[in-house]
């Protein structure tokens, strides 16, 4: 059992795994933003369905959030300021998950608006998906070490002195 645990720890703390996760998560958030950036009115309607964002903030959220996602996604992929980016995405995922859970408990039959404009109902599967992505952001925060954009370019690795 301890050897299995030791193996799992090796995988979880691996900087190569963190790199793969970083690129995967970055791609997901860029993809998620694509439909929302062009049509903020539709995304605003999705957000309104959650009945949590106040009246005065609805349009601002629908305009700004779809751009925060691809910018963070791009930064993750190129490896620039990945810790700050991972924290921002972790915060977003917490907020999204709380919104989804609240509406599941209310029995609301609404569209998630996470990846697609329509046809993506909320549910516990969405909560699980967001939780997995949240864990990935934590892994990036703690274990991401290689192919990072530093002085010297993306392929330099700054070793400890």
């Amino acid at each position, binding site marked *: 059992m301890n050897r299995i645990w030791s193996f799992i720890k090796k995988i979880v703390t691996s900087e190569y795994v963190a790199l793969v996760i970083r690129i995967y998560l970055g791609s997901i958030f860029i993809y998620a933003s694509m439909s929302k950036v062009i049509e*903020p009115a539709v995304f605003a309607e999705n957000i*309104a369905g959650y009945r949590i964002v106040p*009246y005065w903030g609805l349009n601002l959220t629908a305009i700004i959030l779809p*751009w*925060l996602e691809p910018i*963070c996604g791009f930064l993750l992929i190129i490896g620039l300021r990945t*810790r700050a980016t991972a924290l921002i995405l972790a915060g977003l995922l917490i907020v999204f998950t709380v919104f989804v859970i609240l509406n599941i408990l209310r029995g609301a039959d609404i569209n998630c608006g996470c990846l697609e404009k329509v046809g993506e109902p909320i549910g516990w599967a969405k909560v699980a998906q967001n939780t997995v992505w949240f864990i990935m952001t934590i892994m990036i925060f703690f274990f991401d070490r290689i192919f990072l954009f530093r002085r010297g370019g993306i392929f330099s690795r*700054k070793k400890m002195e």
Partner: protein
Amino acid sequence: MEEKSRIRVKLAESTLFRKISSDALDEIASIAQEKFYQTNDAIRILGEHGDSCYIVSSGAAEVFTKGREGTKFELLQMGPGDSVGEIALLTETHNLGAMTALEETTLIEIPRNGFGPILQRHPDVIDAVGKGIYQQFHRVIPAMEREVGRQFLAPYMSWLDFIIIIGLSLIVSLGFNKVNQKGISLFQQITLDEGISFVRPLEAFLKQKKGQSLFVDAMPTNFYEKEHIQGAENLPLTIFDFIYDMTLADEDKEKEIIVYGRSISRHYDEQVANKLSLRNHKNVKILKGGLSAWKKSGCPVEP
């Protein structure tokens, strides 16, 4: 005696002492003792004074040290027959690696105290210990190289990063919204048409009982289906034109229409009321307080 016999057998099977003479084995077994450890028990503490060599009799143990950032990295995994701490048999030293039992483990501990005379009487033991130390380095160095390769600096992070990322998102999003043909206003602003007024729930209920008014629910259909005022028509904002043509297009323009339906995020009732007014309905009213006020007043709803 049984313990000593057991120890002697394990010593003879160990990588360290399998090639030494029988007499040397007897002498080492006489000073060695068995020690038992449970899973996760600490066997050696990093940096502590080391004065014994350990041979794994059964079970498994892990030897590790700590990196610069305090992260643990593994040097060796040990099974039956493996040994650690050979240098401690020759000289005073401090533990360069900590050791923990990975499962229930039995170790044979050979103290430096009492080992000196054995070395003097049995030169083959000197040879065995020397080879043991060499093999130890041979096993540890690749593990250290592997771990050192992982010790890259963590990415830099500061408050400025957050300010730049969020600031950049604000600038790009607001700029894009301005040029986007499908852009929206920064804030929802609804100006009610002249002639649209508000009606209180009890007053509206009386009109409903007399059949004087038509009720329109402006919420999205999934909310309408959960609950709505009895007899209300659903006219969601997003598909207003389509539903209006099917339901209210032929309605008398003088007939009173009471619109309700708002949430913390959207005032659907105001937007639908404006649209009805644009369609020349002269007598459009909005239910004050919406469905929640209607229910609080004790007026009936249906799924």
